[in-house]
């Protein structure tokens, strides 16, 4: 019996450690290949050059061109998702009857379940042509429609997590505010949102993290032209879509083109790692405020 218990424990431990080993493995590979990359390209060039042209004959390795595309699309996505997501969260928490809430929440979460490739061609074939009827100079590939569609995709991240945060605010605060003669609107914005702010911030950070890491939508709809720009109407390239482009191309293993994707991947990982750490820290620091 005892041996059986031991074996079971070992098996469980093994599977649990797989996740840790995988993470460590990925980080190690990223680091090693990136170090190899930085042997041929100086970190200074990598961080300050404004052009990213590793696939051309005249090579530049300025990651800023990809970072700007990444953050431009993510910023547009957040600009769409934050007001809508937060409005939905407040509506669900403060106004919606329970029965409607039960229907709306799963519906919202379907948005996150739609395959991103569907969002991608939705952006390219429907949103972009529609935006072109309003603004004819909009190019076929642009960060605007990719960002908007990505924003729609991440609405549930913000609405669901923010609603959870609002829900966690003690009911007594809501009642105290109502008892003072506050309207639902005043209660929502003067008591509930400030009291839930840490959870709402976490939801926004996770949504940004998701937007930065999103690949398919931007690869399809935002274009493949790395450029340092804040113009949402022109094609850009994000870190993720660059990695797709090279991975699917025929960059020979060990070549400098091949190594760039690890450096780009490491950069991306750093961003999402920092964002997730911030949200982890906020969660830890504020979660027990009311207990």
């Amino acid at each position, binding site marked *: 019996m005892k041996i059986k218990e031991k074996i079971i424990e070992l098996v469980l431990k093994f599977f649990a450690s797989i996740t840790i080993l995988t993470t460590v493995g990925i980080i190690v590979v990223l680091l090693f290949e990136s170090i190899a990359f930085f042997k041929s390209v100086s970190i200074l060039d990598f961080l300050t050059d404004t052009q990213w042209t590793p696939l051309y004959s005249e090579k530049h390795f300025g990651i800023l061109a990809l970072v700007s595309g990444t953050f431009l699309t993510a910023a547009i996505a957040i600009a769409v998702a934050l007001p809508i997501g937060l409005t939905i969260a407040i509506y669900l928490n403060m106004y919606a009857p*329970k029965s409607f809430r039960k229907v709306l929440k799963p519906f919202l979460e379907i948005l996150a379940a739609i395959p991103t490739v569907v969002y991608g061609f939705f952006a390219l074939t429907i949103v972009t042509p529609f935006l072109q009827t309003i603004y004819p100079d909009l190019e076929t590939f642009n960060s605007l429609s990719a960002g908007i569609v990505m924003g729609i995709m991440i609405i549930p991240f913000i609405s669901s997590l923010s609603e959870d945060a609002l829900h966690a605010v003690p009911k*007594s605060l809501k*009642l*105290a505010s109502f*008892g*003072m*003669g506050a309207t639902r609107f005043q209660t929502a914005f*003067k008591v509930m949102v*400030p009291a839930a702010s840490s959870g709402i911030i976490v939801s926004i950070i996770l949504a940004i993290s998701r937007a930065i890491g999103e690949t398919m939508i931007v690869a399809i709809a935002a274009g493949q032209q790395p450029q340092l720009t804040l113009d949402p109407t022109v094609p850009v390239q994000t870190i993720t879509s660059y990695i797709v482009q090279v991975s699917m191309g025929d960059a020979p293993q060990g070549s400098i083109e091949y190594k760039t994707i690890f450096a780009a991947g490491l950069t991306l990982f750093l961003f999402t790692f920092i964002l997730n750490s911030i949200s982890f820290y906020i969660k830890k620091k504020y979660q027990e405020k009311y207990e």
Partner: protein
Amino acid sequence: MAKEIEITMENIKSTKIDSPEIVDESTQQNASRIETKGVKVWYDDFMAIKGIDMVIKPNTITAFIGPSGCGKSTFLRLFNRMNDYVEGFKMEGKIKIDGDNIYKKKVNVEQLRKEIGMVFQKPNPFPKSIFDNVAYGLQIQGIKDKKLINERVEKALKQADLWEEVKDNLKKSALALSGGQQQRLCIARTLAVQPSILLMDEPTSALDPISTAKIEELIHHLKEEYTIIIVTHNMQQASRISDYTAFFYLGELIEYDKTRKIFTNPEKKQTENYITGRFG
């Protein structure tokens, strides 16, 4: 315990309280601040209040007593319509405050609640500074005049006997205060809006004896300006601070009279049983 409950069906049915002194005065407008007629409350299918008529006089302290689940808190929350947020809440009957039925369709509930302040069982300060907590009610009314807000905050904190303890730390988070201080802060927050009726739902049940004594003293002083209704499980508290006491049982108002009368010579057997601690 249960075998000592001596409540007959006959007694339960007779909820109309024969208290000629009170009923007579209610015919004069000024003599009643709150008047209820045939009030019944349901939560879904559960009938929580089974028809209560009651008159509460101005500048008095009325204590609501009774065992848990007897409907006293539900009844209290009718006066500022806080039950409106409870799912499945239904109500019948009339509640008049200063002569106006507060359950009419056109009633401005927010306005009503500025007139009728409420203090809750557990201290529930907002996660804001001490100052912002007390100023909250003024800010939501759109008052921008800083001088006026400062004055009102100071006055309310003084009324709640908290000013001396916090005057140098008004920017400090209210959550850093002790439980007793938090409850006095909640009272100050309510007073800052200058209501004329105060509803207190077991305001000292979560506090230590010293904080409780402070709040009781405070309630005693507030009587001059306010009509106060306090729900309490503490018999001594009811007898110490209130002018009138109402005993509730199973959604009925069993007995309602001057506190002295209730505690020395109650009319009904079950009132006596309850206040002497034989059940509840």
